[in-house]
């Protein structure tokens, strides 16, 4: 028989040693990638357009002659650049992303496919309305779903994000007060636990903010609320479930109190995922609430946007909704873009055109997929998952409001870390080494060293158990008497980048290359 004696070994002989470093800046599958500007090639381009000669007589004196300094990449170079960079990102598609109050749930790919349909993704906002009847109908159907799910009679679709929705809601409230001779009402009540956007938005529209206190069980202190009422109160801004992940048990009483005082009830709908399909904010006395389509209705977070923040409105506020309005008649659907007819009292316009259509398509696709029964299951499973995490960790990690169930997010504080030399930040960074995105930390501000965990309903029990196992192991290690806490204090050890110097970035801002 003939033998090949020059083959390669087929089983490992030598094991790798620690502290191995490559000879260049390569790191196996993780490629280092420079800025596109460092390639300094301004001649190349990745598009094939002819270089035509134009006369441009009419633009004499207006033509750009300076060098722009914009590098071009051919397609293979561009793909490499962005794919390499992508490897440095954590994502929902990779592992649990339990950022409390952000609702990082799975983003169905059908949504993406629908947003790109010919006739939806490519139509222009100013085509004649006769040529976009399907698009306006889609907005109308979305509006019906949002109104039915919230039990509210009207919705303003155009706000482009949650904070933009808050602004829209407060502007509607302001317009309503002015229309009824109550323009002197300039104070907004905000609980201490509120999202930072609430006071920011209130101040933005010229309202002064009055904080209201919290009870020992993490809810609005009704006695304090009553004490802070006055005849200049325009509204209360309340998140429900609140930022501690708890349902405001006295919500109906709170609504009654604010209404009796002549104010409106603005509800921050950031946490709607906890109650969708089970509780209608309209039944709780809410006058305005924004809905983050990128949270509850699964439109992608996209590295920080775009979001969408439609605002549902009560009968009292509906007339003041901003342009455009969707209306329907015998000739089909129409858009009222100028404060005409029934929209005459609108307070203005939140943005050019009609809002985040691409997000409407995705959100509606998600709603149609789940249906009324599926959405009810969404909130049930979201709350179940959060309580499962709370129950599985509360023997090791301290819970500031232990009585009763939480809603869709489990809140821990840092009492259990006292004296360990490990902070909430250290603990969160150590989670990165275990393959998870940290939870929201140091928020809400009312809880010391807060850790707010929102798993969402799209996590399987297997994934939750992996997460719980990792957190238990970390928690046990954190409280172990030992002088060496570098697992935490120097974490992350295994991330592509070590902890970054934020002080330097802020002291010497370098924002462009």
């Amino acid at each position, binding site marked *: 028989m003939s033998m090949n004696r020059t083959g390669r070994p087929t089983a490992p002989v030598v094991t790798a040693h620690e502290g191995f470093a490559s000879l260049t800046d390569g790191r196996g599958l993780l490629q280092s990638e420079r800025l596109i500007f460092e390639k300094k090639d301004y001649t190349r381009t990745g598009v094939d357009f002819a270089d035509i000669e134009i006369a441009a007589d009419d633009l004499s004196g207006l033509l750009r002659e300076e060098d722009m300094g914009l590098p071009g990449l051919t397609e293979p170079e561009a793909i490499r650049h962005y794919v390499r960079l992508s490897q440095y990102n954590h994502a929902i598609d990779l592992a649990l992303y339990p950022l409390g109050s952000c609702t990082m749930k799975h983003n169905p790919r059908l949504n993406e496919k629908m947003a790109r349909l010919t006739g939806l993704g490519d139509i222009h906002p100013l085509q004649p309305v006769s040529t976009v009847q399907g698009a306006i109908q889609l907005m109308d159907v979305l509006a019906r779903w949002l109104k039915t799910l919230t039990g509210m009679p009207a919705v303003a679709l155009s706000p482009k994000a949650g904070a933009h929705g808050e602004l829209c809601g407060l502007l509607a409230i302001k317009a309503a007060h002015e229309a009824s001779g109550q323009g002197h009402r300039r104070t907004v009540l905000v609980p201490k636990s509120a999202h930072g956007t609430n006071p920011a938005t209130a101040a933005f529209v010229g309202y002064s903010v009055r904080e209201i206190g919290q009870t020992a069980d993490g809810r609005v202190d009704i006695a304090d609320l009553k004490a802070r009422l006055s005849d200049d109160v325009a509204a209360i801004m309340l998140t429900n479930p609140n930022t501690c992940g708890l349902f405001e048990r006295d919500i109906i009483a709170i609504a009654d109190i604010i209404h009796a005082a002549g104010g409106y009830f603005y509800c921050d709908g950031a946490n709607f995922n906890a109650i969708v399909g089970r509780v209608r904010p309209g039944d709780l006395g809410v006058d305005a609430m924004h809905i983050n389509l990128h949270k509850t209705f699964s439109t992608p977070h996209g590295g920080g946007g775009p979001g969408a923040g439609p605002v549902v409105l009560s009968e009292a506020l509906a007339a003041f909704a901003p342009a455009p309005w969707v209306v329907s008649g015998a000739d089909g659907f129409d858009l009222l873009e100028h404060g005409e007819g029934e929209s005459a009292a609108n307070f203005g316009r939140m943005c050019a055109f009609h809002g985040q259509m691409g997000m409407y398509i995705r959100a509606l696709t998600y709603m149609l997929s789940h249906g009324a029964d599926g959405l009810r299951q969404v909130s049930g499973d979201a709350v179940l998952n959060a309580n499962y995490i709370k129950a599985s960790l509360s023997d090791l990690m301290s819970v500031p409001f232990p009585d009763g169930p939480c809603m869709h997010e489990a809140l821990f504080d840092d009492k259990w870390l006292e004296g360990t030399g490990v902070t909430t930040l250290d603990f969160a960074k150590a989670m990165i080494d275990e393959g998870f995105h940290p939870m929201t930390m140091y928020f809400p501000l009312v809880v010391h060293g807060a850790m707010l965990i929102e798993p969402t309903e799209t996590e399987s029990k297997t994934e939750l158990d992996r997460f719980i196992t990792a957190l238990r192991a970390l928690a046990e290690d954190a409280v172990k008497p030992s002088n060496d806490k570098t697992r935490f204090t120097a974490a992350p050890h295994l991330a592509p980048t070590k902890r970054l110097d934020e*002080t330097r970035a*802020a*002291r010497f801002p370098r924002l462009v290359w």
Partner: protein
Amino acid sequence: MRFTKEHEWVRDQGDGTAFVGISNYAAEALGDVVYVELPEAGRVVKQGEAFGVVESVKAASDVYAPVDLEIIEGNPDLGNDPEAVNAVPESGAWFVRARIINPSQLEALMDCTAYEEFLGTL
């Protein structure tokens, strides 16, 4: 040197002018200071009115006038060297030099001992 409950200090130079800054305690609570915004010369600020902003990575605070002041100058060094606020808050890292408009207001502020006691209650 006298202090306010908002953690500003004022050091009377005895010639009708004073230096104003923020206390050790405030500098430590803010963390790494990255930016200081100071008023222009000639501005008159009433006691308790904000005349500047101090920013760290994680927090931003207004700085209030401990007494009625007419600003002579902002500390020109803090623009390039905001970390001085962490290093020498109660000496070199003064925020403004100003004319004291109403010297009697100084009396009502805390002296060092009273401020230390006040800090103990926080």
